[in-house]
C-alpha cells in the first residue's frame, strides 16, 4: 500500500512540472510584457526597469522559471503587486482558501446527500415515474448555470422567505460557526445542487451498468436476499466509477465556487483571482492557478487511494489508468 502511494505521487510529478511551466509561461503571454501591463499607461522607464529586476524579469526565461518554482516549492509565491501591494501571495491564498474549501466541502456533502440516493432510486425504478422525474430534474439541474441558480436561491430564500439570512455577506469562521454555516449554507446549496445533478446521472448509469452484471445474476441464482445484493453487489461496485468521477470533477467544484463566490460575494479565491485579472496582479493569478492545480492533483491522488480501497483489483495490481 505504501509503495502504491509513493508510485502515484511520483507519477503525479511530471504532470505538476508541465502544468507549472504552462502557468509560468502564461504571464509571458501578456502582450507587451507583464510589467508594462501592470504599470499601465504611466511608464517611467526607470520604474519599469526597477520592477523588472524586482520581479526577476530581466533574467533569462529558464532562470526565471527555476527561481519561481524553487520559491514556490518552499511556499513562497511572490508578492502581490496591485491587490494588496507588498503582501505575500501565499498569505492571501491561505486567507481566501479557508472560505473556498469550506464552500467546496459543504457543497460536496450536499451534492452526495442528494445525488447518491436519487441515483440509486432512479436506477432501481428505471423507466418508471420516479426515474423519469429525477432524470428530468437532473437534466434541468445540469442546464441551469450555477450563478443563475444562486440568484434564484437568493430571490426565493433571501428576499422572500428569510430576509435575516442576508445572502450578501460573509462572516469569517472565527465569528461563530453557526452563523457562518448559515451564511455558507445558501451558496453551498447553490453549488451543491448543481453538482448533484452531475453525480446523480453518473450514479444512475453506473448502477444500471452494475445491475446487468453477471455476478448480480449469480447472487440471485444463489438465493441471496435483495438487500444484500443491492448493497454488496450493486452499490459497492457502482460506487467505484462514481468515485473516480467525483475526483475528476473536483475541478468543477473549484471552478464552480469561483462563480458561486461572486454571486454571494464571498471572499474566496474566486474573488481573489477575478480581482487579480482586473488589476493585472500576475503573482496572484499565478498563485491561484498553481494552487488549484496542486489541489486537483492531491484530490486525484486521494481518490486513487480511496479507489484502491474500494477495488481489490487495483490494490494488488499497482497502477491503474
Amino acid at each position, binding site marked *: 500500500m505504501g509503495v502504491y502511494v509513493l508510485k502515484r505521487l511520483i507519477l503525479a510529478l511530471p504532470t505538476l512540472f508541465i502544468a507549472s511551466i504552462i502557468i509560468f509561461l502564461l504571464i509571458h503571454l501578456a502582450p507587451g510584457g507583464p510589467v508594462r501591463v501592470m504599470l499601465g499607461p504611466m511608464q517611467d522607464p526607470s520604474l519599469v526597469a526597477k520592477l523588472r529586476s524586482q520581479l526577476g524579469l530581466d533574467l533569462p526565461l529558464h532562470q526565471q522559471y527555476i527561481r519561481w518554482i524553487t520559491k514556490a516549492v518552499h511556499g513562497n509565491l511572490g508578492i502581490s503587486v496591485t491587490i494588496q501591494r507588498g503582501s505575500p501571495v501565499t498569505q492571501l491564498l491561505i486567507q481566501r482558501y479557508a472560505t473556498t474549501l469550506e464552500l467546496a466541502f459543504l457543497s460536496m456533502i450536499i451534492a452526495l446527500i442528494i445525488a447518491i440516493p436519487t441515483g440509486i432510486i432512479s436506477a432501481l425504478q428505471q423507466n418508471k415515474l420516479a426515474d423519469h422525474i429525477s432524470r428530468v430534474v437532473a437534466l434541468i439541474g445540469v442546464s441551469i448555470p450555477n450563478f443563475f441558480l444562486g440568484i434564484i436561491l437568493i430571490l426565493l430564500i433571501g428576499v422572500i422567505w428569510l430576509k435575516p439570512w442576508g445572502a450578501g455577506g460573509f462572516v469569517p469562521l472565527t465569528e461563530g460557526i453557526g452563523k457562518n454555516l448559515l451564511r455558507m449554507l445558501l451558496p453551498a446549496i447553490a453549488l451543491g445542487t448543481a453538482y448533484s445533478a452531475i453525480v446523480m446521472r453518473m450514479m444512475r448509469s453506473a448502477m444500471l451498468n452494475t445491475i446487468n452484471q453477471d455476478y448480480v445474476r449469480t447472487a440471485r441464482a444463489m438465493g*441471496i436476499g435483495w438487500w444484500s445484493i443491492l448493497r454488496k453487489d450493486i452499490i459497492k*461496485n457502482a460506487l467505484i466509477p462514481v468515485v473516480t468521477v467525483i475526483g475528476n470533477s473536483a475541478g468543477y467544484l473549484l471552478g464552480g465556487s469561483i462563480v458561486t463566490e461572486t454571486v454571494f460575494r464571498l471572499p474566496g479565491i474566486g474573488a481573489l483571482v477575478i480581482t487579480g485579472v482586473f488589476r493585472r496582479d500576475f503573482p496572484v493569478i499565478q498563485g491561484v492557478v498553481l494552487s488549484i492545480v496542486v489541489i486537483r492533483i492531491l484530490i486525484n491522488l486521494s481518490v486513487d487511494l480511496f479507489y484502491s480501497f474500494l477495488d481489490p483489483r487495483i490494490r494488488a495490481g499497482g497502477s491503474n489508468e
Partner: protein
Amino acid sequence: MNKELLLDVDNLVTRFYTEEGVVRAVDGNSFDLYTAETVGIVGESGSGKTVTMLSVMGLIENPGRIESGTILYKNEDLLKKSDKEMRKLRGDEIGMVFQDSLSSLNPTYTIGGQISRVMKFHTNLSQKERRKRTVEILDSVGIPEPEKRAKNYPHEFSGGMRQRALIAMAISCNPSILILDEPTTALDVTIEAQIFELVEDLKADFGMGTILITHDLAVVANSCKRVAIMYAGRIVEKSDIYDLYDNPLHPYTRGLLNSIPDLNSEGKTKLPSIPGEVPDLIKLPDGCNFNPRCKYAEDKCFIDDPELEEKNQGRSVACLRVDEIE
C-alpha cells in the same frame, strides 16, 4: 440408490416482449431429471438453453414472461410459488453455475465471503461455522490451501479455480439439483476434465441431479446419459447418448455430430459445419424452424410445424421427414 424424479418440466413457454417484437425464447419444451443423473441440453448459442434454465430458477425478468407450462420440483409446481419461496429455493435446493467465471463473481468481494453469504441466507449456521464450512467446501472442490484462498478476490484465482469456487458456492447448501451452464467453455481441456470429474464425484456422493448446458456434443458424451438437442427455442430431439451417436435422427443433430472432430481421421480435414445461422427468435420461419438450413427440407417442411414425437425406447424427435431420410 433409488431413482427419484426431481424435476419435471412440461410444455414450458417463455417469451420476451421487446420493442422489436416477441422473442420466442422457449417454445413448448418438456424434459425431466432424476436423482444422480446428468441430463445434457445441447444447442448453439441463442437456442434458448440458458433461458430454459433461468425459467426453472424463477429468474426471468421483464420484459420476459413464462407464458405457460408447469415446472414440477419434487412434485411442487415452482410457477405457483411466491418470489420469496423461490428465493429460498434457489441456492438451497437448486444451484446454478454460470459460464464466465470471472464476470460471474463479484470482483470486490472475497471468494470465501461470497460462499459464506450463500449459507447465511439458507442455513442457521453462525458466522464462525460458516467460515469453517466455507473452507471445507473449497477443499472439497479441490482448491489448495483453502484457508488462505478463501480470503482471495476472484481476480487472484485462475479460470479453473474460479469455476471450482462457483461450483463450491452452488453446492454449499447441498442442493438436489445442480445446473451447469457451459461450465468449461473458457477452460482448457485438462481443467475441463478435472471439473467434470469433480461433478461426477459430487453426483455420486450426494445423489445430486445435474443439468449440463453446452453447445458441445463432445462434452455431453463424456458425462451425460440422456441428452436433449435444442434448436431455436425448441427441443428437437431427446435421446440416450449412445443411440444419439449411433443413429442421430434429426437433421440438426446430424449436423452437430458431423462438426465434432473425429480422432480416427488423420490430418486436418475441414470439419463440415451446418450452413446458415440460428434464426431470429422474433421472426421464426413458417413450418419447421430448421428448414432454412436443412438439406432434407421439402415442401411440407415449409408449411407444417413438426411436433416432438416419441419414436422408440425414450427417443423423441421433431422432424416431419424423419422416417424418409437415412
